[in-house]
């Protein structure tokens, strides 16, 4: 077998994607697999350039169960926007952030003639890893599912636990069961908790499927920070969008954006959100060795501008929503309450 035989086989059997930069067109083969965790339809797609096959994981802004629909709010209808904006934040973390950086791209995907927004990312498992999910979300695991933590343990000690320190200790124990050292687990979990607090991630503490690791062939296990679709929560509906369309609301409205930024902070997302005051959660994080994220703020700002232009080009109906969400992220970063969570490492002007 040659080194590319896996990808060639995957290309022979999987869904193909042709991407001209503005539209990703899927082949006629069925896309996605409902056995992936999560509510969004997702699956791998394959593209061939010359002899080389490239693989990406695609998540559609579409419910995996065709009989069900997401809530009408844009955060549920278009999680790709939150995912990609948050990914741009993590992409501008200094490399010592101790969090993986999964690069999500915004996509408009055509499937059987229908266009759907979504996001795509490289196969985060690399070429030598298998995915590990911390705990089962059903009492009866499928025959191909392996968990070292039960649904009841997670529910009692993480999802329903109201104490930051206890939650952390239980999670360190759980990561150890998969071979992650307690030091590694603690460092990762504390950094991830700081990330979730900063971006108001509402999809961690209650979701055992969003504690993920990569088991590598060399025996090492790497915790992974991923899935940003419920970060930067922001109440946005068709009615609000129409107000931008009619000119009743304008981009950059300070009061509106600051209200949204306050909501993100009030969310107290992640495992370190148990205390009522945001600052008390941050203090506990720092007591556990949290290291503020080094963020290249200038590059982040520029890249968010580029992203919003991309959204305007690819899916103009989402432009106001994306632009406002990007501005909200910048306002969250500017808020005095979050200053202990990050430091600006932008190159200074010469």
């Amino acid at each position: 077998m040659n080194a590319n035989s896996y990808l060639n086989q995957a290309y022979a059997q999987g869904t193909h994607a042709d991407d001209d930069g503005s539209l990703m067109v899927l082949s006629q083969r069925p896309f996605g697999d409902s056995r992936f965790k999560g509510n969004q339809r997702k699956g791998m797609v394959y593209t061939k350039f010359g002899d080389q096959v490239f693989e990406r994981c695609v998540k559609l802004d579409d419910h995996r169960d065709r009989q069900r629909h997401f809530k009408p709010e844009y955060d549920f209808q278009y999680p790709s926007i939150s995912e990609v904006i948050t990914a741009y934040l993590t992409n501008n973390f200094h490399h010592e952030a101790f969090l993986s950086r999964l690069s999500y791209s915004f996509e408009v995907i055509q499937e059987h003639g229908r266009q759907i927004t979504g996001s795509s990312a490289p196969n985060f498992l690399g070429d030598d890893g298998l995915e590990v999910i911390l705990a089962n979300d059903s009492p009866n695991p499928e025959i191909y599912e392996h968990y070292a933590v039960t649904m009841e343990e997670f529910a009692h000690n993480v999802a329903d636990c109201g104490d930051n320190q206890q939650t952390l200790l239980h999670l360190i124990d759980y990561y150890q069961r998969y071979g992650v050292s307690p030091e590694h687990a603690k460092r990762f979990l504390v950094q991830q908790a700081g990330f979730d607090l900063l971006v108001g991630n509402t999809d961690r503490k209650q979701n055992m499927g969003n504690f993920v690791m990569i088991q590598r062939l060399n025996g090492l296990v790497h915790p992974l920070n991923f899935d940003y679709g419920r970060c930067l929560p922001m109440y946005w509906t068709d009615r609000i969008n129409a107000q931008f369309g009619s000119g009743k609301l304008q981009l950059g409205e300070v009061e509106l954006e600051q209200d949204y930024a306050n909501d993100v902070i009030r969310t107290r997302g992640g495992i370190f959100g148990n205390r009522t005051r945001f600052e008390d959660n941050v203090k506990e994080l720092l007591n556990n060795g949290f290291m503020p994220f080094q963020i290249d703020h200038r590059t982040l700002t520029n890249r968010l501008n580029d992203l919003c232009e991309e959204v305007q080009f690819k899916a103009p109906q989402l432009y106001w929503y994306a632009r406002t969400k990007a501005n909200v992220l910048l306002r969250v970063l500017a808020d005095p309450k979050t200053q202990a969570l990050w430091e600006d490492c932008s190159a200074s002007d010469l």
Partner: protein
Amino acid sequence: MQVIFKVRETPFLTVTLNADQSQIVSIDASDQQMAELAFPKVFHQPAVGQLLLLLKAYADLTGNLGIRDVITQTGGAISWIPFKPNLTVVFEEDSNENFDCR
């Protein structure tokens, strides 16, 4: 008969069956955790029936099938599993077992 689980092209778990595929006779894993991710019951007194159910799920096959049927229908390998990226399975006959003995 050997059922070899791999990450792409690299094997990490070999399950050896007896000649009529009615029993698992040995399990050889280079990494226990990796082995459990591929075959969760592998270290818990696994039965051929469980292995068969697993292989049918990986190969997207249904119905009353034996190991031989799975091998026939997959052409001797499950080379891509849509919901388990990187995992592959290959079936190899023992050198002295070159006939269908079912």
